């Protein structure tokens, strides 16, 4: 009887306004309790406004990308889920019935997807409550307990993250996810660990829980009753919540203030046309279209913007060459700086210039890396650096070799006559002209090529 892990993943959807009111959603930049109104603080008499259309659209697209079936042609209710907790201003949370079911991502089944409003933020230790987050649109993705180890759960979350980034569906700042993790060991009851705010946290929490549960079982007190726990991210442990955050019976009631939604099959079809490729399909396509190794295709496809850049560049330089460079150099430098491609602000034009120069061997590999680093750290354009290194588009070594041979006709003739030392002489001249920025090998080849003509 193995360990079983299931996850409930909450993602904040990328919208300007909250789910049921027009308040701003940029809670990270705001002073506490400033992005609030009567609706998201449940003042007496307030009523929810219409459901945020963009939130619904993003929620549907996410579900589609996760391979889910959308429940069309029937009424979708938004219900009140009742429980008392200070972060929930009305002491009920508005949450939709599942609108999508039976999906799958990398071997983990998705049970259902629904949308809901975020509660506010209640700091348990100090008793301080901030309602800036209250009412923010969330999507909740519920998996089947198909994961067998904490590491599997972590890997799954990483993949989920990529999918959501692909859609640009989420507000990336402030932690993409809030996860409730359910874990049971050896056929015993499950333990729910609520409100874990990072993928690393999920790994730690589940590792801790697995050990704790197994220890209890060894002592003769296995988990026989479902338990809810809280994850202490500073200590990396789970603790029993003194007062349960949630109820056993939520007394779900279709919200009388929100008439039902009816998602039509046509609207779903339309959305399907609008979907981006998933990371998996993109990687596959890159591999086949550009004939690059699978590993490289996977790496490039792991970041949508990186993949887009690659495709632009691969149109102008040798694709295989570009792919290797993207993986071995660009991605490496980005990772080292913990920057995403988009954050780096590199333009495909600049990359193309750089790669062209590298391809032509007008600069050395080493120089190429230097230039890339300069571009990342100093935001200097490739053009500027390349010019500094010599030549508009780097050195055109073939024409320089030609030049040298025209200037040194005697040496050229000597080599043709059999004097091998003349080659060195000519190569030396080429290296002087290129200020030693090119690899000797390149110069030799260029001269040899020129001499053969």
């Amino acid at each position, binding site marked *: 009887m193995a360990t079983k892990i299931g996850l409930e993943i909450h993602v904040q959807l990328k919208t300007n306004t909250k789910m049921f009111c027009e308040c701003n959603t940029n809670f990270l930049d705001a002073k506490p309790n400033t992005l609030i109104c009567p609706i998201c603080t449940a*003042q007496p008499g307030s009523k929810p406004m219409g459901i945020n259309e963009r939130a619904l659209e993003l929620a549907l697209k996410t579900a589609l990308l996760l391979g889910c079936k959308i429940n069309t042609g029937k009424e979708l209710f938004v219900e009140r889920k*009742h429980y008392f907790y200070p972060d929930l201003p009305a002491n009920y949370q508005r949450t939709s019935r599942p609108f999508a079911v039976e999906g799958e991502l990398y071997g983990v089944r998705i049970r259902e997807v629904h949308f809901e409003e975020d509660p506010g933020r209640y700091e348990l230790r100090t008793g301080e409550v901030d309602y800036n987050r209250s009412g923010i649109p969330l999507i909740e993705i519920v998996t089947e307990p198909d994961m067998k180890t904490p590491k599997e759960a972590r890997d799954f979350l990483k993949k989920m993250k990529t999918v959501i980034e692909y859609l640009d569906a989420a507000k990336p700042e402030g932690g993409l996810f809030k996860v409730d993790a359910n874990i049971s060991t050896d056929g015993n009851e499950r333990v729910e660990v609520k409100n874990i705010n990072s993928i690393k946290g999920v790994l730690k929490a589940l590792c801790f829980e697995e050990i704790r549960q197994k220890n209890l079982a060894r002592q003769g007190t296995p988990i026989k009753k479902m338990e809810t726990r809280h994850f202490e991210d500073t200590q990396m442990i789970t603790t029993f919540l003194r007062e349960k955050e949630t109820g056993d019976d939520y007394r779900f009631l279709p919200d009388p203030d929100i*008439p039902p939604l009816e998602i039509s099959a046509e609207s779903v079809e339309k959305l399907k046309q609008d979907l981006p490729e998933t990371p998996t399909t993109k990687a596959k396509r890159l591999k086949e279209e550009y004939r690059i190794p699978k590993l490289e295709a996977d790496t490039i496809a792991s970041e949508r913007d990186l993949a887009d850049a690659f495709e632009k560049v691969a149109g102008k330089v040798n694709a295989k060459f570009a792919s290797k460079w993207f993986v071995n150099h660009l991605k490496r430098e980005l990772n080292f700086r913990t920057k995403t491609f988009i954050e780096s602000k590199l333009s495909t034009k600049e990359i193309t210039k750089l790669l062209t120069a590298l391809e032509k061997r007008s600069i050395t590999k080493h120089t190429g890396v230097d230039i890339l680093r300069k571009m990342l750290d100093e935001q200097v354009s490739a053009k500027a650096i390349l010019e500094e290194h010599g030549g508009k588009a780097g050195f055109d070594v073939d024409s320089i070799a030609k030049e040298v041979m025209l200037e040194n006709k005697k040496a050229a003739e000597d080599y043709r006559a059999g004097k091998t030392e003349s080659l060195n002489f000519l190569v030396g001249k080429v290296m002087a002209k290129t200020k030693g920025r090119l690899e000797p090998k390149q110069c030799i080849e260029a001269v040899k090529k020129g001499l053969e003509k």
Partner: protein
Amino acid sequence: MNTKTKLEKIKSQEIDIEEESQKFLQKITDSNINAFITVNEKQVIEKAKKLKENISKQKAGKLAGLLVSVKDNIAVKGIRMTCGSKMLENYTAPYNATITERVLEEQAIIIGKTNMDEFACGGSGETSFFGPTLNPWNNSRVPGGSSSGAGAALAAGLCDLSIGSDTGGSIRSPATFCGVVGFKPTYGLVSRYGLSDMTMGIETPGPMARDVYGAAILLESMAGNDPKDNVSTKQKQFDFTTKLDNFSFEGKTIAVPKEFFEGSETTVSQIVLDAVEEMEDRGADRIEISVPDTKFCVATYYLNMYAEFASAMQKFDGLKYGFRTETDSTLNETVSANREQSLGKEVKRRILFGTFISMKEFQGKWYSKALQAKNIIKQKYEKIFSKADFMVSPAAPFTAFEIKEKIDDPLAMYLADTLVSFANLSGIPAGVVPFGFSHGLPVGVQIAGGQNKDLEVLQAMQTLELKRGEIKWPQK
């Protein structure tokens, strides 16, 4: 002086708004009926002054210069909003209800917030934390509820118009007991944004006045689509006044529900039947109909209401606003204490039973059935109004009862709603127009119509009112 005339005299400046406001404020101070929880004194004078200056220069709003009272469960920004409860004794509304905005746009002057049964839980005004409102016609009697202050204030001449709310008869009950006009609009005609939740699926704000025209013009000012209320009508504007008099009973069918009369006092029934006769004299056809058992209606109403009310009341935990005990305790203890110490008995009863029937283990027996029953009632009334233009009946089986007579018997109190909850459950419009007296106490006639037939119902009420003539209002 009727509403129409008053409006004209204000516009022509024959009436000095400032003086008038002072007069009314003084009347309120002198009054003993406890109709108001908060009086807006300072603001009233300021507003009146300002309006006086501009009244001749600009286009007058529909309600220009009229003194309007607002039930204390409807938000008026910057003014205390108590819902008749200790829980909100010191709560100041941080925003305006949509209807408040609209009424202010039409240049009404909000004179104060009226007394009501606590969180609208009652039909007599006796459950208010701020003490009961007295009936101006007879101070030992109840004014009806839950819009008790709204009705009593009109009868006592303490305001020109009142905004109330009707969940299970809460406008029509005080209308009939206080001898004033009260109208429950079609569900969704008037925005509920800013009306404290009681039974969200069926309730609505509504107008009350001394005459039908007053109710009509107030309704016109409030009605129309509101993006802040998802159930509100799609239509943006309405006209309930231009054609108010363009009406004849000729050819109209009047349904008379025998069950409504069976349980009513004889004099009450007689007055209503006189009204029916009046309609027949003017060319209407009368049909006797049988309606769903009125007690079945009450049971359905209360069960549906309990569940939604329990949900609505969850927000009152004393943590964000409202009553907070001094003791420092655990989370659950604090919330429980806050609620326990500030909510009245009937409110607690309803929360308790509402929670009970919403719980998984008990839902099937009560709440699921109540939902079915609600549907049945709605369908039956749809059928009635496919055959009849109006249904005419008493609004209460009796006239205003004595204070304390029913308060200790919840069931008796609930049964006072027997003749009104059908309209809420079906969503249809129903109004009450005073038509007679029984032992010195007013008796109103209730006229109900089909979905969205609000104008027609008002027209019928107007015609009856013309026949009735003037009312001699009580002195206090």
